[in-house]
């Protein structure tokens, strides 16, 4: 058995793509008695440095988050630009897009995963620039897109 490339206990999020983040967030809040979260809009390339399939992209999304124990539920409404989110929504409709793991070093994790045949599809900075996210083309091997979440050291 190998040393883990991803630590199982670092699982921290399940992300959904939806057509209308406000409408879906309202349904979650109503059904589960959770406070309605603030909707966050991610910035374009200039700030988020979003890379889709290796190229700079103006893909953005509106996001809402609910805390449910170890897992955060993330609702994502992508704009029309091609992205991991938009492609999934167009192909499969609304549903779970990814599960996320916290990592200390995105580049090292990416390098280890490339050796396993798992590559990066999309990458960008957090809204406030405090960290970065990475979506991997892991679905054929793991049945789900894996997201890496790294919070930068200050």
């Amino acid at each position, binding site marked *: 058995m190998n040393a883990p490339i991803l630590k199982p*206990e670092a699982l921290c999020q399940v992300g959904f793509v939806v057509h209308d983040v406000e409408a879906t967030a309202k349904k979650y809040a109503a059904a589960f*008695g959770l406070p309605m979260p603030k909707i966050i809009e991610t910035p374009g390339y200039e700030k988020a440095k979003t890379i889709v399939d290796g190229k700079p992209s103006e893909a953005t999304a509106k996001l809402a988050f609910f805390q449910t124990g170890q897992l955060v539920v993330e609702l994502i409404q992508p704009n029309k630009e091609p992205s991991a989110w938009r492609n999934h929504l167009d192909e499969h409709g609304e*549903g779970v897009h990814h599960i996320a793991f916290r990592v200390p070093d995105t580049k090292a994790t990416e390098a280890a995963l490339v050796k*396993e045949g798992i590559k990066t599809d999309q990458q960008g900075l957090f809204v406030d620039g405090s960290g970065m996210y990475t979506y991997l083309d892991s679905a054929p091997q793991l049945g789900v897109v894996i997201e890496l979440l790294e919070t930068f050291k200050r």
Partner: protein
Amino acid sequence: MEPINGLGDKVLCQVCIVVDDADKFAKRYSEIFGVPIPEAHVTDGFSETQATYYGKPTEAKARIYHWHFGSVGVELLQPLGPGSVWQDWLDEHGPSVHHVAFRVKDTEGVAKEFARFGYPVTQQGFFTGRFDNGGHTGVYTYLDTIKDLGTTFELLENYDPKAEPR
């Protein structure tokens, strides 16, 4: 409308991925996450599980691998045979996340609460395996939440509070 009652602290306890070949996927999970491959759990047919699919008895079984990723259960589930929400999902979407789960203490009561929101039961069954006294060890319930909430929600009730959570 009052929120769904009976979900306790509203903690999601499981993520399940339906796959077409549980052994193949389990091997990759073992390699990427450095976890041992556990013994596969194959569920029983109707005589043991009393499973229903849209209200009718079903013989649908599944081959399952399960790990704990921190406090969250990660389940790989390969449907064996038709007549299940697992097989329906796999046929439509291919290998992908099928459900997330809440742990509950009163399945019947909570299922009624979901129904009040327009989310009826799609599939339900007892866990495979029995206590020494012959009693069932627990029950699972899938709810028709996909359209509004983006995925299927599952209720998991373990009848023995001391048993290791699934």
